[in-house]
Each structure stands twice: as C-alpha cells, then as structure tokens.
C-alpha cells in the first residue's frame, strides 16, 4: 500500500495535479486501503474502552463521560489536524501551543478592557483567528523564504509568542465574563457539546482538504520529495508558507475553544500542547519525515491519549504511571511505523 502511495506521490510530482483521485492516496481514506493502518488504532481504542468498562463500569461507559472525553480531546484535536498538514509536508510546528496562548490573551484582553461592552464577541473570535493566522504566516515566511529549518523557526516563535502573551497580559489570568460569547460556544447541539462539533468540522474539513483537493496532493508531494515537487511545477515555497498559516489558523480556532472551556485567557494556555499534538499525529500514522499523512489516524491518536487520561482518573490512579503509559504508546506506535518509513524512503 505504501509503495503504491509513493508511486502516486511521484506521479503527482511528475504530472502536476492531474493524477486521478485515489481514495488511499495519502493513507487517510475513511473506508479504503488505509483500513489496515487504522486497524491497529481502532484495536487500541477498543482495548482502552474494554479496560475502561471493566475497571470503571457505569462511570466510564456513561454518555456524560464519553462527551467529556470528546470535549477534552477537542482542543488538542484541532491543533493536531493543522499539525498533520505540516508534518505531512515534512515540516514541524513547535509554536502552536504558544500561539494558542497568545491568541487567547489577545481575545480576552478585548473582553476585559473598559471598552468590552462595545466589542461584539465576533470581534474576539475574529481577532483570535487573525493572531493565529498571522503568527503561522510569519513562521511560513521565515521557513520558506528565509530558508530556516522549521524546527528552529517555530522554536523561536514558540518562545517569542509566549513572551508577547506575557507582556500583554502582565502574566495574569484574564477571566472572560462576556456572557454572549460563552453562551455562543457553550452547551450542546443534538446532545453533543458545540466544542466537539467544531472539532468534528475541522477534522472533516482537514480530511477533505488533504485527500480530495489539489492543495492536499501538493502537500503530500512536497513532503515526499520537495525537489521533484518543484520540478513538477509546484510552488513549494508558497505552499509551505500556506501550510504554516493553516497550522496557525487551527491554533486560533483552538484558542477560541480554550477561552470557552476555561472562561479565561492566560499566557500559560497551550503549554506543551504542541507536543501532545505532535504525539497524536505521529501515533496516528503520519510520517515525521513527510510524504504521508492521515487525518483519520490523527483523530484516533488524539482520542487514544485523551481516553488514557480519563481512564487513569476514573480509576484514581497516579499521573506518573499515566506518563509512562503515554511514552510507551508513542514508542510502540513509531516502532510499528519504521517499516513504512523504510519503504517510503528507500534511500534514507
């Protein structure tokens, strides 16, 4: 399957964007050739659920608890969708957590200033998204046009964005009391929290973008072989810039969700979330070396980690043991992927 994918990537690189749409092109098909890849994740998820039911019983299996897990997964999930694109293209974005924090501060500052009464909550949402996109595009420009390694450029943004957030907020938590804003995102639609709907929308949009559009094909091509992609006429630099802008946008969306969940903006929001997002993406089956991405896998990855935390808490178990389990899951998942890397990149 992966060999087929590579040939597709090469075909894409060689023939521009005209290759026929194959559902399993990027290993993210919902019901197609990637079933085998995602099967492992499904099994892991089912195993966790079985353990949960055995140990937690009614408390674990309740609708309320499942919705709580989904709500907790939403913020990391949205970040991870953006991260999937960046990693598929062979990059990495360490700044999303900090950018999320900065965006929450930007929006909560609007809400807590004296003019708060005049600011419609749409402006808060808009500004959070704008902060995310701008920070992402700055990353993209530095990486694509400044030829700085993604790891370094986004590391710089990670530190700087956190710093700006601290300066703006004076390192204080700003509690948002704008009722219309909270009510717009709180509560349920058809029994499911609005935040979960947002996550679902972002995931579906991400899946569509990666698997059904030229943009997605180009992303895979750039990650598989940037040189071939360039020769095939893909504007690699511009595309790279857009990708980081997209990751920034997801950070902005996640910031709005964070504002609602915690009713506050804080410069500490999003700390270490970039690592959680990267872990979820990698466990989901997206290759860190680029050239293969799966949104479905990413969603599974996020759910596995969130379920794990929930499971440990329900059973009143220690946080430390949970960290060990998390580490083990990451290593096992990556070990399982090794053979795919070898096949996908025979020269590496």
């Amino acid at each position, binding site marked *: 399957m992966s060999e087929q994918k590579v040939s597709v990537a090469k075909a894409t690189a060689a023939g521009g964007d005209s290759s026929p749409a194959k559902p399993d092109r990027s290993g993210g098909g919902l019901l197609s050739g990637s079933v085998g890849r995602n099967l492992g994740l499904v099994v892991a998820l089912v195993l966790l659920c079985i353990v949960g039911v055995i140990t*937690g019983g009614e*408390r674990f299996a*309740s609708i*309320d*608890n499942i919705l*709580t897990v989904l*709500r*907790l997964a939403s913020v990391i999930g949205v970040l991870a969708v953006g991260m999937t694109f960046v990693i598929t293209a062979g990059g990495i974005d360490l700044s999303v957590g900090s950018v999320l924090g900065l965006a929450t501060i930007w929006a909560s500052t609007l809400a807590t200033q004296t003019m708060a009464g005049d600011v419609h909550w749409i402006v808060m949402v808009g500004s959070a998204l704008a902060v995310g996109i701008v920070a992402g595009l700055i990353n993209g420009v530095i990486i694509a046009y400044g030829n700085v390694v993604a790891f370094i450029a986004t590391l710089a943004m990670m530190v700087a964005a956190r710093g700006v957030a601290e300066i703006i907020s*004076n*390192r*204080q*938590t700003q*509690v948002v009391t704008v009722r219309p804003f909270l009510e717009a995102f*709180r509560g349920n639609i058809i029994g499911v929290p609005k935040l979960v709907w947002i996550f679902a929308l972002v995931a579906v949009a991400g899946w569509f973008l990666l698997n059904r559009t030229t943009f997605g094909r180009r992303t895979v091509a750039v990650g598989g072989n940037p040189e071939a992609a360039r020769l095939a006429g893909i504007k690699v630099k511009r595309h790279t810039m857009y990708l980081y802008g997209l990751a920034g946008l997801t950070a902005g969306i996640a910031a709005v969700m*964070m504002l609602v*969940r*915690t*009713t*506050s903006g*804080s*410069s*500490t*929001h*999003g*700390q270490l979330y970039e690592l959680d997002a990267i872990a979820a993406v990698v466990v989901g089956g997206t290759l860190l070396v680029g050239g293969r991405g799966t949104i479905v896998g990413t969603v599974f990855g996020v759910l596995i980690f969130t379920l794990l*935390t*929930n499971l440990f*808490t*329900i*059973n*009143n178990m*220690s*946080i*430390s043991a949970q960290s060990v389990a998390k580490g083990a899951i990451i290593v096992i998942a990556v070990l399982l992927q090794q053979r795919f890397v070898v096949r996908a990149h025979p020269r590496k």
Partner: protein
Amino acid sequence: MSVRRARRRVTTPIVVAAALTGLVLAGCTSNTAAEESTTSAPAATSSSAPAGTGTGTGSAPAGTAGGSAGAPATGEKVVIGFSAPAADHGWMGAITKAAVAEAATYPDVELRQAEATNDVNLQISQIETFINDGVDAIVLLPFDGAALTEVATRAMDAGIPIINVDREFTSPFAARTTVLGDNYGMGVSAGTYICSQLGDNPDAVIAEVAGIDSLPLTQDRSKGFADALGDCGLSVSNRVAADFTVQGGETATSNLLQAAPKIDALWNHDDDQGVGVLAAIENAGRSEMLMVGGAGSKNMMDLIKAGDSVVKATVVYPSTQAADGVSLARLIVQNANLGDLQSSGVPRTIQLFAPVVTADNVDQYLPTAFES
C-alpha cells in the same frame, strides 16, 4: 569586617561602571570572602549554631550594629540579589511584585533582580553570578529547593547569607534564614474547615485537585489535608493533580467530575488553577459541592463574597513571603534584630500562617489578595 565594609562603601558607586572595575572589586570581595570562610566554616561553629553568615559566629558578636528594637531608618547600603521562578501564575507574579515594592521602601537597599526562570540550571548560574558580584545577601525562591541547595551552600560558604523563601533547601547549611508559607497547615486548614461543614456525614465524598504532584509542597498540602480529614473520620475519595495552570485545572477536574458523580466537598490547592477548576464544574453543570480554594486570589475572594457560586472558602498562602525575605536580608546584613523580639539576630525559620477565608472574614483578607 569593618575594613571590608569601608572598602565596599567606597567602591559601590563604581560597581555598575566598567567591567574592569567590577573584576577588581570581585577580586577584593572574593579575597575577603576567602578570609571569612576560614573563620565561619560550618566546622568552626557548633552543630546547633547557624552556619556561618559572614557576620558574627566566627568574628564579632552579632547584633551590635543594629541595636535592639528594629533597624535604624537607614543603615549602611545593602545590595540584595533576588531570584525567583517565572511568574507563570498570579501568585508567583505577586511574589516578585511584593518583593520589589518592599525593597523600594528602604533607601538603603539595592535590589538586583535576576530574570525569573523555571530552569534550575539558569537559576543556579544566577546565584553563581551573585556570588561573583559579591552581593551582601541573596533572597532565593528556588524553582526546586533540592536542586539549588548546593549552590546556595556555596554562597553561604562565600560569606553571603541566603534567605530561602517558600521552597526549602535540603541542607541546613544552605540558608541563614528560611521564610515559609505553611503548606502542611494549608491542608490542615482546608481539611478542618471541610470537617466543620460535613463532619456529621461519615459517607461524604471528598475530592482533591492538587497542584504539581512532584513538588514537596504539594505532598505537604495533601498530607495536611488527609490528616485533618482523618480527625473527623473523613478521607479523600478522588484525587487528581493538575499543574497550577488554568488549562490543567480544567482538564483534570473535567475527568475528576466523571470519576465522582456526586461530590460533597472539593479542595483545590491553588486559586490560579481554580479558574479552570470552576470552569469545569460550570461546564459539567454541577453545583452540589462545596469548594475550598488555596492561596487566596482576589478572584476567589470576590466569589466567596458574592456567595452565588460553589466557592465557599479559600486558604491563604501569603504572596508576601519574598517581601519578608527582602526585609529580613536587610536586617541580617545590618546585624539588626527582628521587631520586638528580645533574642539577638534574625530567627532561623519563620513560618507564616494559613488562615481560612470565608464570607464572614473575607473583607479582612481582600486587601492582601493577589490578582490571579
């Protein structure tokens, strides 16, 4: 001693000038420090006496300069180095603010602030810099007490008194004086208050949202809480640990609420993360419990005063500790005594009180509450 002080007075104005002068000065101070450390090495003092402070023990008797009740309005110039963790939450921000404000009230104190950091390596090098600069005293709130013990001991050996704030070192030789909040006492206060509210219900479900679990202070709080609850036959049924941040409080509490469908009382260790804890309780639409906070933020006190939320009390953990550290450092360097105490010299350990704030007494504590 007096020779060194005279020389310091002459050279202080130039300290900030050329690096060359600084080097020469460092040479002077390190020489005198070396002389002093021979007279005040821990070995030279009896085991019960405080470790050498560079004033007193070995050479001149302490407590001669300052007289008895309080220090003079302005004594000799005191240079104090100050290092604390990054103000990544309100309480820690308030710590630094209060320390700087306290230093500003003394015309004879020059406070040198190291950049706030949560990186113990950086904090260690900051203390090393203070030692090389030959400051008169160091007020240190370590990110991790154990990790900073060795460098603090080196400062003490170099004749620079260390005032250890909030997070304790692991060696008695690492600090001249220690100012502590009462972490164990916070737990006791919270537990005792919950006992007074629920003591007649032996089946009460008690939940606990701790801070960073790896810190000894968190362990102390939890132990105090468990001990106090034990006194009235209650115990913690569900415990989660967060990380002193709003997001951590929200995440941990969301899961906790699922683990415990009905909670009678919940103690949250830290009011900063309390914003998130409260958000999770609101998100889950739960209101059956009585929530007690910790630290004493203005936020929580306002809620207690309003009386329309689940927050009924909070336990104070003073954010004025480092400010107290600064004034103690000044007294130690000037060989003065503490307030109305009769004994010579500043005490070795000062532990602050952790009162319970409820609707009845909230007005008394609101002025000293910190902005979260």
